[in-house]
């Protein structure tokens, strides 16, 4: 077969694409142009593309789980997480136990103007307090407004999807996302976390020890 000149072939490619965009239904059976289906354009404000579940859109905070241990703040490459807290007294874990003192977060700010979306904070959090959400619509006209506080971060917990199943052959365990909406102080969850990691102390010097390598 003689070779078609590349000039004509090229015209063929663009014409074919135009035809496919205009008549996406097979074989042009329907001659009504339907570019909305044929094109790859997503008309953003009108229709929204759903990012994958794992998409690193924004970091959500499950405040009840946070113990202000500063691990995330320290492992942040940009130093963009600011945490302050205070101690409160919490009831004992079981009957007959002593009253414990627990950290409560007063301030948990992430400066999204600095954040590089690396996800290290989410990963290092030993208490399941930070999660990725695919939410992406939080742009602000002023750069200073990108500093989001714990209330805003907690609202995003609602948008955190469940963790995905793995392909066969994986040995990873599928994790669970804590339920949203338990707005009161949840000592039960803290208790679980405590028992899961007995080596980790909640006190600040314990967290420091963890950061320096003793906690492995």
């Amino acid at each position, binding site marked *: 077969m003689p070779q078609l000149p590349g000039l004509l072939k*090229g015209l063929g490619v*663009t014409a074919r694409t135009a035809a496919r*965009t205009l008549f996406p239904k097979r074989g042009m059976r329907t001659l009504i142009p339907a570019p*909305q289906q044929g094109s790859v354009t997503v008309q953003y404000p009108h229709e929204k593309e759903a990012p994958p579940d794992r998409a690193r859109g924004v970091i959500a905070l499950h405040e009840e789980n946070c113990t202000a241990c500063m691990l995330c703040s320290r492992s942040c490459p940009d130093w963009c997480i600011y945490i302050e807290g205070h101690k409160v007294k919490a009831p004992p874990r079981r009957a007959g136990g002593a009253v414990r003192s627990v950290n409560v977060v007063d301030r948990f700010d992430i400066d999204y103007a600095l954040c590089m979306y690396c996800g290290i904070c989410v990963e290092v959090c030993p208490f399941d307090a930070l999660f990725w959400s695919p939410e992406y619509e939080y742009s602000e006209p002023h750069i200073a407004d990108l500093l989001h506080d714990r209330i805003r971060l907690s609202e995003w917990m609602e948008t955190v999807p469940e963790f995905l199943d793995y392909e066969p052959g994986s040995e990873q365990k599928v994790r669970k996302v804590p339920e949203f909406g338990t707005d009161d102080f949840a000592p039960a969850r803290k208790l679980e976390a405590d028992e899961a990691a007995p080596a980790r102390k909640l006190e600040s010097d314990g967290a420091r020890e963890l950061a320096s390598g003793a906690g492995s």
Partner: protein
Amino acid sequence: MSAAADLTGALGLAYWAETAIKLGVALIVIPTAALMLGYLFLLKMMAFMQSRLGPTDVGPHGSLQLIADAVKFLQKEDIHPAAADRRVFRAAPVVVLASSFLLFVVLPTGPDAVVENLDTGIFYAMAVSSLSVLGVLMAGWASANKYALLGGLRAAGQLIAYELPLILAVMGVVIQADSLNLQEIVRAQAEGEIFGFGLIGNPFILTQFIGFLIFMIAAQAELTQTPFDMPVAETELVGGFHVEYTGFRFLLFFMAEVATAFAFSALATVMFLGGWWIPGFDFNAPILNVLGPVVMLAKILLVAFVIFWIRFTYPRLREDQLQKFAWKVLIPLSLANIVVTGIFKVVL
């Protein structure tokens, strides 16, 4: 300019009134033509060829997008570069636009629907179309910008290389039609015959196919559309001669570009595709003053489609390659075309 022109003749208006109406119609037709081509091809067809949607929000299917753009352009600040030659800088877009306005003067769209039926119609069209290069050169020079200067110089070089094949390609048509008058060329095609079969006349694209090809290639270069868009060359000269233009001056360049594409499509239609004449009608039938423009428009859109289709598909040549192509291929080919046409004219 179309039906209205006939109307004015029939009404026997005074010269000034007739001229005013013609002018008014032309002033409406040219921006409308530019808008239509721009919307249909530059926005929508290009988008479809690239799996996109193009504009959708302004007006039905985004059809008023260009008007919105024009309004936006008008709101922009009018910026002159500090070192620019201000007067020339301001005049350049007007010169370019004037050249495309003047082209519309001789384009016939019906037996009487023509602004001025010049006897030297083609000659005039070729002459005024090359005026635009003057404007481009002015823009390139006056911008005091190296990119713009390179673009302007490229445009000048391109003009010399392409004006020649353009005119030589037209020569074949002129020889065959025995006239420089565009109306007469349409008549020659309408009354011609293909081996005794005269129903569809004899569109010169059949006998002057090589001429048509050369005309289209040269027109592409004249319009600085893509394989020959070196004067603009976004990725090397960042816009070439109009790099310093903003706001409504840039709008004028843009309008001129699309309007000239329209005009050249119309010229190709008149010379090669039989113009406004519809097979089966008497050449002077008054109804053609109404139907002619419609037929003409359809043919123009077809030719313009090809022009833009090529524009969206092809990469751009280099200036020296273009010169080589023009002087070593197109000009000898068009000369041969003239010789062959002449021989046939004498023999037949």
